[in-house]
Every structure is written in C-alpha cells, then in structure tokens.
C-alpha cells in the first residue's frame, strides 16, 4: 500500500514537470510581426569609391621609388561611407550612413536594417551614394504589392545593375 502511495506521489510530482515542458515548448506562439504587416529588410555589403581620387605619379616621382614599387597610380586606401535612404509612399522612412570596415577604413561598408510596413501597395524608393560627395548615384524605385507576411529585401549588387528589390 505504501509503495502504491509513493508511486502515486511520484506521478503527482512528475506531472507538473511534464506539463511545464509540454506547454512551454510550443506555447504561447511568438508574434514575429503584427498580422497585416509585411517586412522590409535592407541588407548590403559594398565597398564605396575611394575617398580621394587616384593621382598619376610623375616620372621623377617614379624614378625615386624602388623598381618593384613603381606603380603609376598613387591611391589612398580610405573609401567613402555608404549613404542609404529609403522613401516609402513619398516620405523618408529611414536613412543611414555606414562607415567602411577596417582600421584604414578601406573595407566594405555593411548595412542591415529591418522595418515593418502595413501590407498593401507601396511606392518604394531606395537611394544609395557610394562616393565621398555629390548626389545619390544609385536609385531604384518601384510600386510593389506587399501582402501580409511578405518579405522584401533591398540589396545592392554592382554586377546586377545596382540596387535590387527582391520579394
């Protein structure tokens, strides 16, 4: 009888643990984005133009250099920061400036940003400037129908024509 009671007590103590694990392994569901919303991600890795343009060395300058160092172009390493703007339905939704990586700031700039939008039709304009100054030299504009739960990726691929909208 005592053994039966002990087994019953053990079962009574296992049960809460079983419930705890069973319930919280899947519940409550986590709402990643609100129903009726879509997600826009801006993600790009791109090296900007050189901050200072290359200069051609004179013959006298080249002569002073060791033979293996006679590069006709003298280029600084530092690259321009990327400036990105996102305009949605005529309003500026987001803007950032990403510095190049590296101690000499000679690496690629990396941008990652996520934002939600109400599902529906939106006019989206993405602008990128990868030079030290001047206007935005890459612009892409599109009117997109974004259903609820859709993911729009805005990327940059120089070999594919610049800014990309991918859904």
């Amino acid at each position, binding site marked *: 009888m005592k053994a039966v009671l002990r087994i019953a007590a053990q079962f009574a103590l296992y049960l809460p643990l079983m419930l705890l694990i069973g319930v919280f392994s899947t519940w409550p*569901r*986590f709402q*990643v984005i609100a129903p009726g*919303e879509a997600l826009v991600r801006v993600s790009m890795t791109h090296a900007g133009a050189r901050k200072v343009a290359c200069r051609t060395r004179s013959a006298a300058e080249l002569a002073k250099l060791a033979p293996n160092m006679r590069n006709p172009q003298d280029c600084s390493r530092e690259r321009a920061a990327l400036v990105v703007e996102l305009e949605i339905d005529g309003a500026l939704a987001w803007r950032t400036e990403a510095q190049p990586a590296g101690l000499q700031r000679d690496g690629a700039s*990396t941008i990652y940003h996520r934002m939600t939008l109400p599902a529906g039709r939106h006019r989206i304009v993405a602008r990128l400037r990868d030079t030290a100054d001047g206007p935005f030299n890459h612009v892409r504009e599109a009117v997109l129908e974004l259903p609820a739960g*859709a*993911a729009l990726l805005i990327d940059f691929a120089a070999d594919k024509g610049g800014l990309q909208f991918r859904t």
Partner: protein
Amino acid sequence: MHALDAAFVRLERVFDRAFGAAANPLRHLGTLGYLMFWLLALSGLYLFIRFDTSIDGAYASIGRLSDAEWWFGGVLRSLHRYASDAFVVVVALHLLRELAAGRFRGFRAFSWISGVPLLWLLYASGVIGYWLVWDARAQFSALATAEWFHALGIGAEPMVRNFLGAEAVPNRMFSLFVFLHIGLPLALLAGMWIHVQRLGRPRTLSPRPLLAGFTAMLLALALALPAASEVPWDSARVPVSVAQDWFLLFWQPLMYATSPLALWAILGGATAALVVLPWRARRPALPAAVVSPQNCNGCGRCVDDCPYQAVLLAPHATKRGAFQAVVMAERCAACGICAGACPSSTPFRADADLVSGIDLPGLTVNALRARLEAALGKLAGDGRVVLFGCEGGPALGALADARTAALTLPCLAMLPPSFIEYALRSGAQGVLLAGCAPGECRYRQGLEITAERLAGAREPHLRASVPRARLWQAGDRVQDAAGLRESLAGFRTALKALGAPPPTRPKRARVAS
C-alpha cells in the same frame, strides 16, 4: 539566497517522501543533466540516420518521421525535443540549487566556473537543432540569431545575409549546421567531463528509479504531444508567428523586445556575474588538511576518500621508494574525511600526543580523542551514550547531559571507526551517529563513506568484534530536534535490554584513568 535555499530544502524534503532521499530528483539534478544528454544522443543518432542533410530534403525527411513512422521515428523526434527542454530545466535548477546553497566558492569554484560555458554550449546545440527542421521556426530563429551576431559588427560579410534569399543558403552551409549540431554537443560532453574533474568519485549516472521515471515521463509526453514542424522555410515570407520553444529560444523574443546589443549586455553580464561570483562572494578558507610525512605510509586511503580530489600521492619526503599524501590546499574543503580514512588516526595508539598521517588543523585527531576522553569522563548513570554529529547536521548541544556526550565534527566521515570502538570500551554503553539528513551531506559523500566503513566495505572499517547493537544511526528525521531526541530515547531503551557492556577498557584509557 537564504530564502531560496530554505525553499529548496523544504521542497527536497517533500520530494524525499515520494522518491526517498537516494532517488530524489532534486538531489540528482546534475546526474539528470547527464541523463538528458544521453537521451538526446541516443534519439539524435536515429534521427541523424533518417535525416536528409540537404536544404530541399530536410523538412520532408523530418515530416516523414512524424507521419509515416510516428510510432518510432516520430516518438524519438518528440523525445529529442522534450529531452532538450528538460535538459534546460534540470540545468537551470541545478544552477539555482548550487547558488542558493552557496556551493560556488573556494574549493568548489572550479566546478562552478567550468559549468558556465556549458550553458552557452547547451543553448548553441539546442538552437542549431531547431534550424535543421528548416521550417518557419527555423527561419525565424536563424534570422534572429544572425541579427544578434550582426549587432557585434564582426566579420566582413554579415551572417544574416546567408539567410535572406533561398539561393543564398547552400547545402554546404546546411551541412555546417548539421556538423555544429553534432560538434557542439560533443564539446558540451567534454565540458561536462571537465566540470566534474574536481570531484572524487563523481556521480554522472542517475539512480535507476529516476532514469526510468524521467525516460517514461518524456516518452509519455512524446506520445501525448508529438513534436510538429511549422510551415516550410520560405525566404519570400516572414513567419508572422511561430510556436516558440520558451526554454531554448526565449532570448529571441527578448531581443526583439529590447535590442540585439541589450541582449548581448544581458547575457554577457549574466555570464560575467556567474564567473566572478566565486571571487565576489569569497569567504576565508578554513585551514586545509596537513600531512605528517613521518606518520604517512602512503596507503592512499585519503586520496580515495577525498570528495574534492584535494589529496594526491607523491614520492615520500624522506623514505626512498615510498609515497606520501600531499594536500592541494586550494582544493581542500577542510571536511576531515581524509583524517577519518587514515590508518594512523586510531585513538588506541598509546602516544600522549597522537599525530595522524593526515590531519585537520582546526580539529586534529589528537584533539578529538582528548575531547572524547573528557566527555567520557563526565558520563555517569545508566544509558551512557556518545553522540557524534557533523556541522551540516543537527545542533547537538541541547542533547548533552550527564548521560550523553555530544561531539560535533566537520563531517561525520572524519570519525575513524576505531573511535566508536574506543568510546564503547571507555565507558560508553552506546554510540549514536547523527550526521546530515540522507542526501544532504555538506561534503557530498560523508554519509556514504561512513556507512561503507561501518559495513566493512571500505577501509578503515569498524572491527567485527564491535557489538553492532550498541551503534545506532539516527534515521531520516535527524534534522528534526524532536526526531533526534526520540531516536536517542529509543536507543537507550534498546541499550537497557542489552545490559551492561563487558569491561574491556583499552590500555590507554586505563593508563589515563
């Protein structure tokens, strides 16, 4: 912390009634962690055999396990899921229990600190396991993890870009996840091995009733609530909501509720706090055991019995070819178990100044003998009992009277069995041992070692000629003052029935008197 410790003690005693102290899950949280690991390893082995390690095939292969083979593969899949959650639960309780009991400082610091990276390895193993299902939960979790790492700004190509397009995740990367889901648990196992390296005779196997009970519980859960996948991973969509595993993936919603950097600060700060805790909460260490090379014969019993691997054998200081014990002071708990194990710790030695091969400066064997002799000298009347207790056990002071001598040791296993015989031959009619409650030994194995010595299963053993009827051990109610008093009264009644012991006073006691 005291309130938490008291709550744990109360809960442990409730569980003792149902499971018994020897198989109480709250007293075996560490071994339960090992049990969960092996359940995961065994179930994972089968899942790996049936798993298609490619982006296109992974989701379907897991789905087939749950649908076509629900009775075996599906159950193992669910068991794998629930064992990982149970692993988190027992590890969290293990951490809280040790923290509440203050078992993280001094000689325990190594075990504490080596346990901290295991938390990260456990989570890393579990999180990557969820990615292998390649469903919406995997998509959310992988992106969230990548965004978290992206916040650190490490690496030229951010990890998050690997998951943003269907074509961006090659099969080779998926193979990397599979590799990590095997490699990280192996690293976890190695860490678990290191974690117990400073423990003498570490227990990594759960008692059978727990092994059976936990396995049955997880199997029942697997059958009642089979684990299910979410919809397949779709890079063109965002999972609007996911069935979140709040044990393993709780930190991802926390990150979106705060920020990736805030999450790094929270988890990094918590990790740093756990690591520095042994130093921040440091207490003066008790004087470590010392070895007397002249009295040490290198038998190695203290090495075997030390619960924290603080004693080792080294070449003898003066005797060529012989060995002696050496104490690593920083690991010594000052429990005195080594002194209790030493063959030279016998009170029958005629030396006026008894020096043991290994001794505790705070309470030498010589001082213990002197205290015992002084207490025996004061005993009078019928039913004379010597009560030996330990610092982790009940307070014995209130029980001392003309018929009861009460002596408290750091640990009951510090008591060489010869002291029991010595007490019985020096005027005591009975010896009552009242150590910690079963399962609550402050120094892990004091009760076990004492029981083995008394049963003759461990050296130094209690001689067969010692009348066992004159030796009692307080039962499960030892921590309860009334229970101990009852035990003492019951012992006296039993002693009365035995009559007076034969007059066999040891030579040394006769000389002393």
